[in-house]
């Protein structure tokens, strides 16, 4: 068995809105093995970013709080860790990069200063050692003229270069897990290709695990070993990247894959998922996807399924009553108004 680096069990994160609590993440469980790249996929508002912030316990300045579940990192429950010890984990053992590097870099500090901080704080290097290491890190992430860039401010760099700097800061302490939250969404495709290549190379060189959070199925297909699909704050499907794309077991995953236009696909019309993502404060009863689902039955509208293991597979799960029907025909699409 491969060793689990991170094991999330029944995570619940709630946000206070007025006098009520809204569940942004409900009962989310998944794991990441060592050296594995796991994709966390879903559309806006599905809870994928809140999940990642919860893992890092970065909800302090928000109305949100973790109200249940465990986040086991190398066996230790991060939810229960004192803030002081958590600070040691952040940046040192688990590092994170975000979509917009400009909002995560300090605009009034030079690049060098920002890179040296984790090195002096976490690794106890001296100023001159840290400077040397900082230049070395910038070279590792493919920044030309590293010894000059160190004196630049973030605004003097392009978006792609800023993301490289963020990655350099993230890998500075050789973390065991890198959480990358939409790392290439703000970048152009040719720059995205450079950054994805870089993450792949660093993962291999440093024996890191990566949790890649994205809405882009193309990025998932190219980068990930395993995929977790989220909808309305829940995990709805889990499987290896091969299985998931070849044979999605949840109607939402299937709809998502089919609605993306693909190069040289040559179809006249795109499939689409009707309707909209439900508001977190007005969740439907039963399966949260049922109102948009072509396969929904009476049961789906009444009773929410758990994550059902797919028979004859290892670790394949789907939050669908029909997870173990062999074909989509067996599940039988029903048109509106005929449900049940």
């Amino acid at each position, binding site marked *: 068995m491969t060793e689990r680096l991170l094991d999330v069990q029944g995570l619940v994160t709630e946000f206070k809105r007025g006098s009520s609590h809204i569940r942004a993440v409900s009962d989310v469980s998944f794991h990441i093995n060592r050296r594995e790249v796991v994709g966390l996929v879903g559309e*806006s508002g599905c809870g994928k970013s809140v999940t990642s912030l919860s893992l890092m316990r970065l909800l302090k300045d928000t109305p949100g709080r973790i109200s249940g579940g465990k986040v086991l990192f190398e066996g230790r429950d991060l939810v229960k860790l004192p803030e002081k010890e958590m600070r040691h984990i952040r940046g040192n053992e688990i590092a994170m990069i975000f979509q917009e590097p400009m909002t995560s870099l300090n605009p009034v500090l030079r690049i060098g200063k920002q890179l040296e901080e984790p090195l002096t704080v976490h690794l106890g290097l001296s100023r001159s050692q840290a400077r040397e290491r900082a230049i070395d890190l910038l070279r590792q992430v493919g920044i030309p003229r590293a010894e000059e860039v160190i004196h630049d401010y973030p605004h003097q760099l392009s978006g792609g270069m800023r993301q490289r700097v963020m990655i350099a800061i993230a890998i500075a302490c050789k973390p065991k897990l890198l959480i990358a939250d939409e790392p290439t969404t703000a970048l152009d495709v*040719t720059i*995205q290709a450079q950054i994805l290549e870089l993450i792949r190379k660093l993962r291999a060189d440093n024996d890191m695990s990566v949790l890649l959070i994205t809405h882009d199925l*193309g990025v998932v*297909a190219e980068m990930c070993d395993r995929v977790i699909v989220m909808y309305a704050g829940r995990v709805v499907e889990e499987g290896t990247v091969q299985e998931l794309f070849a044979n999605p077991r949840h109607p939402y995953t299937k709809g998502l894959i089919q609605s993306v*236009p693909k190069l040289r696909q040559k179809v006249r*019309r795109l499939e689409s998922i009707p309707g909209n993502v439900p508001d977190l404060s007005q969740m439907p009863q039963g399966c949260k996807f049922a109102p948009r689902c072509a396969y929904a039955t009476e049961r789906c509208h009444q009773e929410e399924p758990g994550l059902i293991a797919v028979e004859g597979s290892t670790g394949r799960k789907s939050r669908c009553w029909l997870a173990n029907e062999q074909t989509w025909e067996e599940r039988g699409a029903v048109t509106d108004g005929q449900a049940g």
Partner: protein
Amino acid sequence: MDKLVEVKGLKKSFLIQKGLGAKRYLQAVNDISFTIRRGETFSLVGESGCGKSTTGRLVNRLLTPDSGEIWFEGKDITKLSERAMRPLRKHMQMVFQDPYASLNPRMKVKDLVAEPLIIHTKLSARERDMMAAKLLEEVGLGSQHAERYVHEFSGGQRQRIGIARALSVKPKLIIADEPVSALDVSIQSQVINLLQDLQEEHGLAYLFISHDLSVVEHISDRIGVMYLGSLVETADKDTLYERPLHPYSQALLSAVPVPDPNVKRERIILSGDLPSPVNPPSGCRFHTRCPSCMEICKQRVPEFREVEPGHYVACHLYDEGAQAGGKS
């Protein structure tokens, strides 16, 4: 061939620094030419800062070009005054990326949709309301939405309102600037399907501006690829995606992540970043990142030439006899 729009040698720069010292200009669009036929979708693709949005705004004269010509239905509209332009705007409407930023939050949806009718038609308020209800239905919203405000709608629904508004005056051309980029994939496909249905129904032409090559392939008839203010290649969709000629088009297409884990492709990874349009490279603007750069590319701007019927490319690799210069 029935041309709706013809653009010839269009140029536009923006003054970015005045006062002390030399004036500095940003060359946003540099000598581009293309045509849009009636009822077709012509797309402009390229990365941020390549000038595709500026081009869209030049075509409907929201911006005035420095030089070059714009013809609409056989009429030169390059130098028309704002007043003379107004009746023509009825025929060329615009849809923007962020419908929340482009729709007035204080107006009811029915008034937003019917507003262009006040300017361009003599319909009564009652008639306008009826038109608005009809338009909302056409874009997949109900009459129950007419009395609401924009903030009550999701991103996809807002974009539908933006489309209904553009459609209200029965335009011949819709300039759609990244209309689906801000939407989630499941919603994106709904809006793309809607745009295609409307095109079929009304014989609309689209100038579709996007950075997403998969979406562009799906929706377009012909495509122009832009890099740093210039068009580097124009061709019909199948030609461009099967046989891209310009090294930039080739790199761009190879960089698109494919949502299929079984597809393993040779990827051309371009080195470096986009140069600044304030100080663009000499010769071919792509030469600093081009994997097949030759000596001539650094000196001479390549001509935008038709290398086979309907397939234009600006690259010295395809000059007759240029290969004699050899690769450097």
